[in-house]
């Protein structure tokens, strides 16, 4: 009975703390703001443009590379199949 009471008191004491912890975002979370942070030393825009540009060029280049290799192999395949007939 005493143990049960102790457990009940402990639970009641922990509950507000758990609720508070759940309401607080964990450290390292992203917090949105409406404006750009003042006093930025390194301009962000060239870095963003470089990152997005690299991926765009990379994807287009890779799709072109696969397409070219596929075209070459399929031409070779068609040639071999026509020779076999």
């Amino acid at each position, binding site marked *: 009975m005493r143990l049960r009471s102790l457990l009940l008191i402990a639970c009641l004491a922990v509950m507000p703390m758990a609720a508070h912890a759940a309401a607080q*975002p*964990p450290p*390292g*979370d*992203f*917090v*949105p*703001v*409406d*404006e*750009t*942070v003042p006093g*930025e030393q*390194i301009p*962000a*825009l060239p*870095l*963003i443009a*470089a*990152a*997005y540009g*690299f*991926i*765009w060029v*990379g*994807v287009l280049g*890779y*799709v072109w590379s*696969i*397409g070219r*290799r*596929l075209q070459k*192999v*399929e031409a*070779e*395949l068609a040639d*071999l*199949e026509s*020779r*076999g007939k």
Partner: protein
Amino acid sequence: MLALAAGMFALAPFMINAAPNEATMGLVYKIYFFHMPSAWMFMVAAITAGIASARFLFLKRPSADGWALAAGELAVVFGAFTLVTGPLWARKAWGVWWVWDARLTSSLMLFMIFVAYLLLRKYGGPGSDKLGAGMALFGMANVPFIYVSVNYWRTFHPLTSVVPTLPVEMGIPLWYCVTAFTLLFIVLLRMRTRLEHQRARVEALYLLEDES
């Protein structure tokens, strides 16, 4: 599917532009919308290569080798995207291009494993398919370590808790980009696997020609 992925990529800058800036990182955090999906596809490609290699090695499925090689190449492509966009973000957010923490170092290792895998497949000669399959399995084993590394070792890198706790106005463009990258990954994997299977057919026809 390629047209859908291209359309989603064309709309992505508008979605990303509509997202708010971040309190401490400002505008530069928007690299995250392409960096994180690239990193996920990097890991998905490594897992795909590992599973296909296991099928090739243990179930003796020759077609699985084509899937493994295609996924291995995609791991290098998406790995390059991740390892280039990450430092561009870090330069502004952390003040340095690179730190040798567990996440960055293990990601670089995974990238190098798959570069070595492709070199082995290209120049390794007979037997390189089986040796490469073992290497891809080793690469796949690194993926869980990369994913949880930020939670166990001290790092500047955002933790895995960032994605589920992202505010809605940041979460929508992120999941949009994840969908676009997933579509792109599927399209590229199918195209690259088709190339490998056609190559196998060409080789089989040459062998048939030599025998007759």
